[in-house]
């Protein structure tokens, strides 16, 4: 079995964001980057499947972006992926989800993968398109928003998360693409021996131009912080002073403290 896991490196979402000089994406200066949280579940599920099948499947991890994304790739290799493809693109943020998906589908089209794992969305752009579009381009079965995954002799049975906490149980024939939701599993922390082992694993590098043959279908005009609605009171300063003010407000405005 051949498995592909698509991962993205994104900024820590606790960061402060501001627009870049072009005004169409965020300024990367001073941001700390890490693996997209949803993708950690995708890597973990692929590695668990490899373990279930006695180590037989080969797991390739793929990421598109500038050289910094190699850090996320190394983490996936240390978690248990076998090899990696870095599709180098310094202007990744100017590509729309259609172009990213098309580039990945072009790569996958020649590799005969049986199963492709992705996160259900990225934490920065959040389009939730790339995985599904890859499936459609390749003619693979696809299910999104997985909170459950089971593999048994060529068939994948998944649980999709629905609104209100219900789940939809779906069976897929391979080849398939599945997109992973938070809570699907417990992503492992790479151990030191596995981090050392990962250093020897192959990372092949390819420029995006080799794979990207289509024009964008959507374009970002502008990125900006949301307008502050105002109205809300912001309390800063010493904890005791903050408490005096907060409790004063709560006594006045709510019935809870009467």
């Amino acid at each position, binding site marked *: 079995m051949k498995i592909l896991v698509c991962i993205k490196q994104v900024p820590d979402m606790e960061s402060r*964001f501001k627009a870049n000089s072009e005004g169409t994406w965020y300024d990367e200066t001073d941001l700390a980057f890490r693996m997209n949280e949803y993708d950690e579940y995708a890597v973990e599920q692929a590695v668990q499947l490899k373990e279930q099948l006695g180590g037989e499947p080969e797991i390739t991890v793929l990421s598109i972006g500038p050289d910094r994304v190699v850090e996320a790739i190394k983490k996936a290799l240390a978690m248990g992926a076998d090899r990696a493809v870095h599709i180098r693109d310094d202007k990744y943020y100017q590509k729309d989800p259609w172009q990213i998906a098309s580039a990945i589908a072009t790569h996958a089209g020649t590799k005969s993968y049986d199963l492709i794992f992705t996160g259900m969305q990225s934490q920065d752009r*959040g389009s939730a398109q790339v995985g599904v579009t890859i499936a459609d381009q390749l003619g693979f079965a696809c299910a999104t*928003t997985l909170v459950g995954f089971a593999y048994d002799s060529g068939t994948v049975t998944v649980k999709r998360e629905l609104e209100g906490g219900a789940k939809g149980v779906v069976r897929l024939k391979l080849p*398939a693409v599945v997109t992973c939701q938070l809570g699907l599993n417990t992503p492992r922390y790479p151990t030191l021996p596995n981090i050392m082992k990962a250093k020897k694993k192959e990372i092949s590098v390819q420029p995006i131009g080799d794979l990207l043959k289509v024009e964008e279908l959507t374009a970002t005009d502008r990125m900006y912080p949301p307008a502050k609605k105002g109205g809300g009171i912001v309390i800063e300063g010493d904890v005791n002073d903050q408490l005096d003010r907060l409790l004063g407000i709560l006594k006045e405005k709510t019935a*809870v403290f009467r």
Partner: protein
Amino acid sequence: MKALLIGEYRQGKLLDSTYELQAFAAQLGAECAMVLVGSAAQAPKFGGKLYLADAAKYGEYNPDLHKKLVLEAVAKEDPDYIVFVHSSYGWDLAPRVASALQAGQVSEVVAVLDGKFEVTCCNAKMRRTVTPKSARTVVTLQAGAFTLHGEPQGTPLLETLELSDLASPVEFIGYEAAERREVDLTRAEVIVSAGRGVGKKDNVPMIAALAKALGGELGASRPVVDAGWVPHSRQVGTTGQSVSPKLYVACGVSGAIQHLAGMKKADFIVAINKDKDAPIGEIADVLVVADVMQFVPAMTARCAR
């Protein structure tokens, strides 16, 4: 300008989110037709044409067949926009339709500004305006972002959609109901919620202590539940419980849209967060900029007096 609206149907019922599609079309000033894989008995109130496929035959979730059905309606209507709700149904189906049509997709639209679509990104800390470059555009709408003014009206003109080939690589087995709730947060007058900012499981009792001091219940955001710090029965948000207490205290909750959707109806919202820019500040009546570890025990001590 014409929009094709893709309605939602689950467990034998039309979903109300279907009317948000109509609100969006009205705002866009588009003429519209609808598609529903559902039943005639559950047809939406709508004054236009409804392309109806029988859910008993095509399944409530069968994205490969639903894609083909939507494409049939697209061929008949030649719409400029194909509109879905950004839901477990919409985000699953929309990219398949967009890919088949080679149409650009704009995901999770929150507003229409001068003919451009505004979307959120970076955990709601930033927004973008997006312009489609394709002849047709697929759009998904953030749940709750568009509201129909007044009651929906009309009886649709029905046209049945049929497919000859029902083969599909995806088989829907069935629904699994939400876990039984040990705690009914919907009745709580005060809820004190723990978010990722509480740092670790060992800190959760500190949040629970404040809830107790205020005579309320402990709630939690999704990351805290996923990490196993608090049981799912206490999760507030889209995939947990929707609550409307008199007082909601969010401790270290950043304010992802899915969480806000479950608690924004609270009468009074206090957020305690060390990040002054956290999206929770957008809807909080009071934002206390402080370290949860310091502030919460101090507040508990004062309230327990």
